[in-house]
């Protein structure tokens, strides 16, 4: 008897000719996360399933593998499975009962047995084997009940060259495997929303790059470290992130000095979008991602979004656009970015936030205000791009 993990994948199942690309991406991602658990895992892809085993048949710690798989997009569900030689039904029944005893001793379930017969020359038909194993299980667990419609536990048996059996399965994250959706540039702040937005797009198979706007001395090294930490937490799901840290202070100060104060934030946002798009071009990213949600703050009204949107040509993905704050917080808690996001390191740039910012900016006016920056902005913009520090986060 050997251990393996059987993985069923989600939407990939319905993709047409590209299916193998998605499957290969999923296998690569699983190999990647398992390489951090330890050496010697073998990931294979027989008949619409992914199998994880140890290369030499030795034992491994399922809990470690479980933790890793729970961060992989594209998995529908997975289970710890035992692989055994076909030594006849008696031997199988004994092993199966031992397996269930080990996992569920003392618990009571309604259950059914589900057999899949990939090897058609097996002497019993699927239904017959299910019925037989069901009886043996009932003999061993007299308090259990059979329920074929809505069982609490399904005992799976798969007849292949060898026989696999498993019971308890864990739900995966679903979504699409990392890297199947192209690359996009995330505008990452230290707040609650943007890491969640990045996570959600990564869940659609998108590879993330990120840009963070650093404003020393108005924001501190700790604020930057916080963003690096958040990027790390998102990267646990999305894979490697290239984080561009842009020194934005001089642009902010120029806007502060020359433009109307109630438009500071909106103009600043427009420059952030422009810079993000620049880096997107450099990195081959084909969209921007923001954590905006309609109406959350002055710069996220529908008018403001129009105003910031018009400066870029790339599509801007805003996965949280229709989310309530609490819904966003729920996801951030689930992906464990929340505790980092609420660390209080970034309010020093409040001087750049007007007490009463415009909530319904008009694009013509904003453009006119921006022209006041004409003599300085090209130089500042160039310097900001050139002095950007890029950190590879994995």
């Amino acid at each position: 008897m050997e251990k393996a993990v059987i993985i069923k994948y989600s939407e990939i199942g319905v993709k047409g000719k590209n299916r193998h690309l998605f499957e290969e991406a999923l296998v690569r991602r699983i190999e990647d996360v398992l390489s951090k658990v330890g050496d010697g895992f073998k990931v294979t892809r027989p008949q619409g399933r992914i199998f994880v085993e140890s290369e030499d048949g030795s034992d491994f710690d399922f809990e470690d593998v479980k933790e890793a798989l729970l961060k992989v997009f594209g998995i529908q569900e997975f289970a710890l499975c035992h692989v055994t030689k076909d030594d006849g039904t008696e031997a199988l029944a004994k092993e199966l009962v031992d397996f269930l005893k080990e996992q569920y001793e003392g618990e009571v379930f309604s259950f059914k047995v589900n057999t899949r017969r990939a090897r058609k020359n097996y002497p019993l038909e699927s239904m017959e084997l299910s019925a037989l194993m069901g009886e043996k299980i009932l003999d061993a667990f007299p308090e259990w009940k059979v329920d074929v419609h809505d069982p609490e536990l399904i005992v799976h048996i798969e007849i292949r060259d060898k026989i696999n059996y498993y019971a308890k399965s864990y739900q995966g994250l679903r979504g699409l495997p990392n890297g199947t959706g192209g690359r996009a540039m995330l505008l990452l702040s230290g707040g609650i929303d943007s890491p969640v937005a990045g996570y959600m797009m990564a869940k659609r198979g998108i590879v993330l790059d990120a840009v963070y706007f650093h404003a020393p001395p108005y924001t501190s090294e700790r604020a930057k470290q916080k963003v690096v930490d958040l990027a790390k937490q998102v990267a646990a799901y999305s894979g490697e992130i290239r984080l561009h840290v842009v020194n934005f202070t001089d642009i902010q100060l120029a806007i502060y000095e020359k433009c109307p104060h109630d438009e500071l934030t909106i103009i600043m946002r427009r420059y952030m979008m422009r810079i993000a798009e620049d880096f997107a071009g450099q990195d081959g990213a084909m969209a921007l991602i923001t954590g905006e949600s309609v109406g959350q703050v002055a710069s996220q009204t529908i008018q403001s979004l129009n105003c910031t949107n018009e400066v870029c040509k790339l599509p801007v993905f805003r996965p949280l656009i229709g989310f309530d704050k609490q819904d966003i917080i729920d996801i951030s808690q689930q992906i464990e970015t929340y505790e980092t996001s609420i660390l209080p390191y970034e309010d020093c740039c409040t001087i750049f936030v007007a007490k009463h910012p415009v909530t319904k900016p008009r694009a013509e006016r904003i453009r006119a205000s921006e022209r006041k920056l004409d003599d300085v902005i090209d130089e500042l913009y160039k310097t900001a791009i050139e002095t950007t520090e890029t950190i590879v986060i994995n």
Partner: protein
Amino acid sequence: MECYLDNSATTRCSERAAETVNKVLLSDYGNPSSLHNKGMEAENYIKEARSAVAKSLKCKENCICFTSGGSESNNLAIFGSLFANKRLGKHIITTEVEHAAVYSPMKKLQEMGYEVSFLKVDPWGKIDLVELESLIREDTALVSIMHVNNEIGTIEPIEEAAKLVHKLNPNTIFHCDAIQSYGKLPLYPGRIGVDLMSVSGHKIHAPKGSGFLYIKEGLKMEPLIYGGGHENGLRSGTENVPAIAGLSCAVEEMFKEDHTKKLCKLKAEFIKRIIETEGISVNGVKAEIINEIKGSDPVDEKLIDKLIEEKEDFGAFHIVSVSAEGVRAEVLLHALEEEGVYCSAGSACSSNRPAISRTLLAIGLDEKLLDSTVRFSFSIYTTVDEILYACEKINEIIPRLNKYTRK
């Protein structure tokens, strides 16, 4: 130029102390309780340290209990003395400006049914002895007053307070948090009626994780940590020999000479330069003294002697609290950091979690300065050149930052 002016937060470990720590960790690593000679070697470090510390306080060696630092010393002093002397009563007197390591235990004691009176302070951070006198009762078990305020440098009249307390109630235990003053201002607890005195090692160039509590001979104490009965049963746990050995070196270096004049000159030079900048004010120092410094050009011996004489009004020589109107403390801190100048901000920069300093509130600082106050703190190794450099940067940065305020 790196100019570390945050020595009240922590100090650089002295070279000799660091080398000793290294030696103890790698060569003389025995457990003082072991019977073999590795154990004895280790025990000798502790003996030497106890002797060095006792000498610095002019007290007996058995009065010294090594701890992990200031917070533990304060906790042991407060809880340990109260729990061992329950019959003295359930009333405590302390001040509004104590460090959290005294203030938080007081809050805990309130929950436990103790009555705690908090002494108010004047605009320079000083307690009022008349108020103290009025608060002392028959059931006052403990009075805890800090020697030097960690944020603004005020020197509290410990000797007078201790004498007053013992005159009115000889049973009351007097504790002094001397964490900011030890090594910089003389205080001999046994000679002035201080029963308990807390000291931290890393404020005087010893390793972090070292410190001690002075305990008057014969005072009943109860431990907070139980176990193998180390430190006379008061603080169980294998002695932190490397840190204690390092502390011993640092204490010897600290007390080798008198640093008063040197530190006083640093503070005078510093204040003289920064008050030239508009919007700057210095907390905890009386206006007459500021004017005297302004009027004296250059800072000469005469001024320094006078400031030392008037230290009750000038404050501890190694701490300067500065408010810069219109500039957020943390922004100033980071701007200085970019120039290699390190200081500390009284309150964390955060609109959703205001951490306004109790001390600054207690001295009645103008509300608009609460979030605009930073602290500079010197060490015996700080040089006048460093001070000049820091002042130059401060005077450059503040007007620049003042241009940008929230509108």
